[in-house]
């Protein structure tokens, strides 16, 4: 690491985790599928940087692995796979939202207030970095839930879920020396990978559904 001033590291850490919360807001008002995926890639990249910085500050080498997983899979592999899916199945539509972006953003602001009010009192005895980290993590978590609620499309729901997961990893990296962080982030990545694969798979089936129906009819059984 080039930076040797510990104070500077802390400041950058605040800046990056705060940026994650802002990118979460940006995710809320994206109206196009491709833009949503790109914004999410930025979100995951920021997560990777925060976690790497936390690994350096806490001297926890396991966290570098978590950071690498975040960057390689969430910032690169999964966005590429999602771009592939929307190209392949021609999903370049705008995103259907259940409520208008303005209203969603206002609700998001309310959630930020909730997160601060819940987390401030419980972190009074801990140092400022942990406090900030947990507050930002809860903001990202709540905004991810909000995004999942306000979208109808499966891909944007998955993006919402992944941004929520980023909040969880942010929280786990922030509390000092949490065991199993690597294992848990691997489990989360497997979960998401399964779902992305599943979407691709079921989409294929939908495309060739006529074949499937003929197959069912030839067995003399009515499809449900």
């Amino acid at each position: 690491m080039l930076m040797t001033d510990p104070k500077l590291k802390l400041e950058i850490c605040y800046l990056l985790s705060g940026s994650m919360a802002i990118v979460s807001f940006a995710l809320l008002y994206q109206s196009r599928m491709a833009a949503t995926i790109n914004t999410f890639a930025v979100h995951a990249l920021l997560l990777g940087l925060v976690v790497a910085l936390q690994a350096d500050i806490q001297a926890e080498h396991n966290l570098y692995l978590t950071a690498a997983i975040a960057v390689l899979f969430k910032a690169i592999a999964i966005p590429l796979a999602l771009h592939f899916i929307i190209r392949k199945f021609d999903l370049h539509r705008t995103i259907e939202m259940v409520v208008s972006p303005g209203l969603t953003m206002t609700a998001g602001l309310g959630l930020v207030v909730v997160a601060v009010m819940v987390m401030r009192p419980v972190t009074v005895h801990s140092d400022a970095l942990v406090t900030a980290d947990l507050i930002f993590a809860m903001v990202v978590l709540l905004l991810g839930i909000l995004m999942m609620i306000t979208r109808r499309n499966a891909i944007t729901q998955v993006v919402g879920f992944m941004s929520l997961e980023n909040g969880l990893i942010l929280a786990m990296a922030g509390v000092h020396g949490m065991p199993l962080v690597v294992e848990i982030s691997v489990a989360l990545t497997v979960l998401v990978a399964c779902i992305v694969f599943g979407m691709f798979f079921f989409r294929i089936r939908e495309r060739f559904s006529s074949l499937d129906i003929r197959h069912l009819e030839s067995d003399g059984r009515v499809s449900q």
Partner: protein
Amino acid sequence: MSLLADLGAIQPIHFALIIPAVAAGILVLIPGYRLGSQINIVSSFLTLLNALAIFHTRPEPNYYLFVDDFNIYLVVLTDFISFTTSAFSASYLAHEKETGRLTRGYARFYHAMFQCMILSMNLALLSNSLGLMWVAVEAATMTTVIMVGIYRTEAAIRASWKYFMLTSLAISLALFGITLIYFTASVTIGSGPAALAWTVLRDNANLLDPAVLNVAFVFAFVGFGTKVGLVPCHAWLPDAHSEGPTPISAVLSGLLLNVGLYALLRFKMIIVGNGLALEPGPLMVGVGLVSLLFGSLMLYRRWDIKRLFSYSSIEHMGLITFAFGMGGPLANLAGLLHMVMHSLTKSAIFFVVGHVAQVKGTQDMAKIRGLTTSHPVIGWLLVVGVISICGLPPSGLFMSEFLLITTTFSREPILAVILVLGLLIALGNLIPRLHALAFGVPEGNLEPLKTAIWPLVLHLGLVLGAGLYLPEPLFAWFQHVAAMLG
């Protein structure tokens, strides 16, 4: 990784994980579904034998795995029902294969996933580390999501999507709760695996910050409560039950809901041990009663037979949550007994329902009549099963419900009235349905059924046997665990 190094020498407890893992690996490689289902049965049986071995030789707890009186009883129950379900799914799959609903590749996939599910449930029950438990619950969710969608009909995919979205969102919240618990424990206990180990947390609960515990418990309650199917987070449950293969419905209702409740109770024990944090009791009592009433009201005019019994699962999980919320030796005892009896009875009912739906080719109850005339064996077993699930004597559920109602009457009479009301509504909704299904002029396919009856007879025999006579050592065991839960 540090995890593997800390697990220590190989012991029976590890075989609870190794056997299903190896079996899953073998099943992926074996193309024939007949051989696959046999391996599935043998492996499930070995896992059950191994669970009994763990019961006798307790390993020393470490920070990752441990055995105590509470989890071993659920491990034995889980492995027992997995074993009988594997036998049931062998005959179920043979029929699905004949009718062409599942291809050979999917049958192979099904068997491998079944073993993965046993693996993750055993791990969830045996893990001492809250983080490891979370990973296991997540893995169990993932495998069942895949199984629910295995028919790939539109309804099945929609059901598994809903199941995935709701439960993975919920357990993410639970993970945040676990992170918060670690956050407070790392300050007082010191960072490292000890601060995430349940045994350490329980013994040092009074050192933890009550304010953090309150927030953590709320997250964990919503998270694992969704896995239990408590109202208002129950929406995934009826769809997942009715669209997946029936053996999976049996496992979901009989085992997976229990795993969620088990996780919740572990958190409750930490909170109660702290003393200054919020009282989890009233929350659990309230949500439990609402689930009980909701589940029993929703039984009215359900026409899909699997959906009907999934609402009954919501009702019973509500009842059990209520019992543990009341707390105290008697209510806890009732809750523990009810967990076992409900699992055995509900999975037996799903076995019957699976056979019925296969032979009639429909899940629509309006098209199923006169089962006792057309298929006397499964017809009468359905009668016994539904009478048991209603809590009528002599079933074991009568015993646990009676125990719960009497202790609630002596402590909170008003709550007991609501409890009894819910149970009566469920009874009033289920018995007419049973009457229509089991009696009258038979309709639909009258062909005899080739099936394995013994898992059914075994389950219902145990439930009725326990209702009439529960051996003294077993009863003492339950009392001991009930006292442990506080």
